């Protein structure tokens, strides 16, 4: 009889299995938090680390399989993001979007400006819309996975995505401060 190991049905209860979970999910969790908060990178990494440390503490309570573990981690991350938002005044937060790697300098500047602006627009969206957009585009989740995760119908999620994109487009038009849209016009002409 083993008196010292807690009996658990969790597939992530051992350090080895948890390590596997971490390696598989570090990037999705990081990008999810990035999508919700818009950065900065250091804060997002802190929240990512905290998500996995919390998950480690709660690993014995997780009774799903490895596939559903991502959703479980995302829920932990969401709670942490909400807590972090409560602690931070919106006025003091800054949206700093890091440029994508391996890009030419000019493209970096453009991408950075566009993403910075887009994240500013995203920050004004209701939490649910921002989360769905993040899951769909930054994590590449399918609509049915998102629907299952947020307990909604697929149709509902599709409608929200469509409406949110329209809203982002409208907001872009209303708030475009540095005429960033010109870039898209140029791209269209080139293609």
């Amino acid at each position, binding site marked *: 009889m083993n008196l010292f190991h807690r009996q658990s049905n969790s597939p992530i209860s051992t350090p080895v299995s948890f390590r596997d979970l971490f390696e598989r999910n570090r990037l999705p969790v990081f990008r999810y938090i990035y999508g919700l908060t818009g950065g900065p*990178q250091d804060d997002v990494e802190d929240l990512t680390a905290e998500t*996995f440390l919390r998950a480690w503490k709660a690993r014995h309570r997780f009774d799903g399989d490895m596939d559903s573990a991502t959703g479980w981690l995302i829920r932990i991350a969401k709670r942490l993001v909400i807590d972090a938002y409560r602690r931070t005044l919106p006025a003091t937060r800054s949206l700093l979007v890091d440029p994508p790697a391996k890009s030419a300098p000019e493209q970096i500047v453009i991408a950075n400006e*566009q993403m910075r602006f887009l994240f500013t627009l995203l920050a004004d969206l209701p939490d649910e819309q921002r989360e769905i957009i993040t899951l769909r585009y930054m994590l590449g989740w399918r609509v049915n996975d998102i629907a299952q995760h947020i307990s909604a119908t697929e149709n509902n999620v599709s409608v929200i995505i469509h409406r949110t994109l329209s809203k982002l487009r409208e907001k872009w038009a209303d708030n475009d401060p540095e005429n960033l849209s010109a870039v898209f016009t140029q791209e269209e002409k080139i293609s």
Partner: protein
Amino acid sequence: MKPIPDEKQIEELLENFSPNTSDRLDQRLSTAPWTPRVVVRRRLITATTFIALAFALLVAVTPQGQAFAQSILQFFIRADQDSYPLQSWQMTPPAQTSNESPFKYSVQAAEALAGYDVLSPVEVPFGMVFFGASYDEKYHIVAQAFGQSADYLEFSLWQQPLEYYQPCGDISHLCDNMLGGNLAGASADIQTVQIGNLTGEYVEGVWSLTDSGPVWDPTPFAKTLRWKTDKAIFELVYNGLDLTRDDLVALAESIR
């Protein structure tokens, strides 16, 4: 009309945005509990704890073990019983002492009188203040008293150069200096503690001087921690329930 990105372009922008973690995340989680290094270390600690527990059990249950345990205590001596008959020194009236508090010096003044560096905690426990220091010229002991009010000195720190240290662990003689009295009751739970890289001993309890003789009272209200450096022996005495053994150890570690 000003051109704006369409929904497809916004989708592409979002899809192509793929931020990556930096080395900072790995550094941040380098000591996470699931990392191989930490797992190995935890196993080592578990194994060591098992050995220590087995040893403690051996010490606790066998007479040889108890004798061995006593032999390795540095600062306290375990009495052979918890109560003794009335002692002759209990019947001798105490010498007349002045009403003046012995804690009448600043640390600097006590240091000047003692002629050695007097160490103090960097921070005193919440709500307490420093009341003063005393100097015992016979035993070269400097004591510092702390508490919430002058009427209630909860915590004191005693320091004596090693060359003057004289243990007096004998119930039949009154020990007239605080640091010398090192006799604890037979049942006293004398614990070895780590204070930084020094080893100390901690005990809860006090001899209660009843009319029928001294009786060991293992009250958690009276806590004593002793340790020594290469120059001096120290004693931290706390009368209260708010601070734990670990708090006292932390205080001891903070003295400079």
